[in-house]
């Protein structure tokens, strides 16, 4: 049973490119994601949701100043970015990065080989990739295109879900994978996440602004994220209350 444990996490963002000192963003985050659970994090713009996601994934811009992150007891913070991925973490990014000249198929094969420690079986590989693409209604012609280059916002998000399906991590962090999607695309993406969840021993951390996606992906827990920490926790009903009342209450309390 996989378990991702985040304890008292403090994170600053490097602002040296503007000649500034590091800026503290996360102020003590505690969160435990067990296999089989889906946690939703909701919060206003700038509250630090992406910072949390990036910090877990190991983005070099973000410096952990205190706290721990462990996956099945292993110290995640001492791992390099790629080691974290190989340990079973996956981050679907809010803004997926374009990599010109690297084809989607080459990218997926290289990533799969790295995660599994061996090249995928030739016999089934192409079919597996095509199936994953078809499931999110992505034309298989995307295989030959450069990674994310010239993809629409929605196509980038679907491509993240294709990777989720192909790489099949233990814990998936989805950073606003729902934003910028029309309703059909939203259902398609939610379907991908649900297929992932239906497997045994998988955890999901779903970062979102809107309750819309929670109609298709039912969370077990909802966390309200404000000012770089979790301000309140509850079950799915908390999402409904947020929809009705907004974040004002929490923002006022935090400031």
């Amino acid at each position, binding site marked *: 049973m996989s378990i991702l444990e985040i304890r008292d996490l403090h994170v600053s963002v490097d602002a040296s490119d503007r000649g500034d000192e590091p800026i503290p963003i996360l102020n003590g985050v505690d969160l435990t994601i067990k296999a089989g659970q889906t946690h939703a994090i909701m919060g206003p713009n700038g509250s630090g949701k992406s910072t949390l996601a990036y910090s877990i994934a190991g983005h070099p811009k973000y410096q952990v100043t205190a706290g721990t992150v462990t996956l099945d007891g292993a110290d995640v913070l001492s791992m*390099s970015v790629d080691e974290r991925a190989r340990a079973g973490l996956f981050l679907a990014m809010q803004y997926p990065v374009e990599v010109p000249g690297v084809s989607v198929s080459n990218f997926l094969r290289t990533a799969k080989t790295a995660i599994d420690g061996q090249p995928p079986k030739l016999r089934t590989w192409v079919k597996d990739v095509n199936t994953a693409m078809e499931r999110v209604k992505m034309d298989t012609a995307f295989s030959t295109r450069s990674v994310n280059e010239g993809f629409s916002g929605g196509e980038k998000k679907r491509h993240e879900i294709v990777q989720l399906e192909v790489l099949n991590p233990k814990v998936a962090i989805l950073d606003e994978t729902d934003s910028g999607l029309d309703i059909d695309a939203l259902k398609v993406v939610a379907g991908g996440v649900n297929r992932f969840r239906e497997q045994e021993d998988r955890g999901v951390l779903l970062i979102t602004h809107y309750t819309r996606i929670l109609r298709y992906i039912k969370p077990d827990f909802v966390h309200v994220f404000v000012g770089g920490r979790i301000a309140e926790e509850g079950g799915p009903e908390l999402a409904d209350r947020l929809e009705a009342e907004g974040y004002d209450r929490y923002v006022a309390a935090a400031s």
Partner: protein
Amino acid sequence: MSVTQDSHDSQDSTDKPAVAGAVETSTKLASHLHPAGSFDLADHPVPNGREEVWRFTPLKRLRGLHDGTFTEGGKGSVEIDAPGEVTVERVGRDDPRLGTVYTPNDRVSAQAWQSFEQARVISVPAEAELERPILVNVTGEGTGPDATFHHLLVDVGAHARATVVVRHQGHAVRAGNTEIRVGDGANLTFVSVQDWDDDAVHLAHLHAEVGRDASYRQALVSIGGDLVRISSSVEYAGPGGEAELLGLYFADAGQHLEHRLFVDHNAPKTRSNVDYKGALQGQGAHSVWIGDVLIRQVAEGIETYESNRNLVLTDGCQADSVPNLEIETGEIEGAGHASTTGRFDDQQLFYLQSRGIDADEARRLVVHGFFADIIRRIGVTEIRDELMRTVEGELERSVGTPLASGGAR
């Protein structure tokens, strides 16, 4: 886009000994673009490094090729493997065909013209369609500072189709000129790979005359050598010709790789496209790209675009990139240029690593991707894999010297 416009007192400068003048008038920004040249070494003053055409080149490392203090007697071999219908000759200095395409336009080029002993002439008969490339393997067999000089003429007859691949390897201190005539309606792909040993010095001039409705594709690939400086110029013998000048370079620590392009649009309805990509890594890696395009008054309806992109992989590198467009007529289809120098993108590295790909492999993918389109466009299947392998070999060296900000922990 920065467009340089300049008025010239004379359109017909071809029969003036303009070399000295061109150097002296460097205050007139674009006048160095089209010096007439001279076969006489004395017409080319010894450069002091401040001249426009020499200011990027470390003269101290030229082993005296520029000031006559070089020593002669360098050793090397040239092997040419060509399909049967091609004539390959070794000729004396007095062969009347030599010097009919190109006149030396800088000091080292003139030195090479004065010093070469025998020239090679490769002739492709009119209408021949070669089934395989002509391979020219140049191997430097020297060890010290001794210089070699060479001259090559490639003459492709009307409506012929040919590919020439020149490979340079080994150690050499070498200067030379290559004249290329692409006959009317002919199609020539000319590839030159500079994969010298670390201490080689190579200065070369290539000049192509592109016939009416002819198509010329050139690719210069510079990987190895202490100092490589290649000047490549193109002019047109009639309207309708097109030139595609592609380049790829990979400068390592301490290497100086310089490519100087000059396209002389001296005929109407001609086209040119210059596209160079370079990567740099290691302390003191230096690349220079000069892209000069001259659109003469007669050259109505032409189209030109030039681009140079540099990818800086580590700290301590310098990429100089100077596009220069000089337009003497407004009646053109299009003209433009782009020049970018970017550092290795940490976001790309992070994205790839977040999918489990380790940092070295991720860098390899990104650089691979950076060069992929240019290698594809070179279009010579025989050397495509070889080029990819060469690029990868270069990347192997970069392992352990990432950008200061590239650590992803």
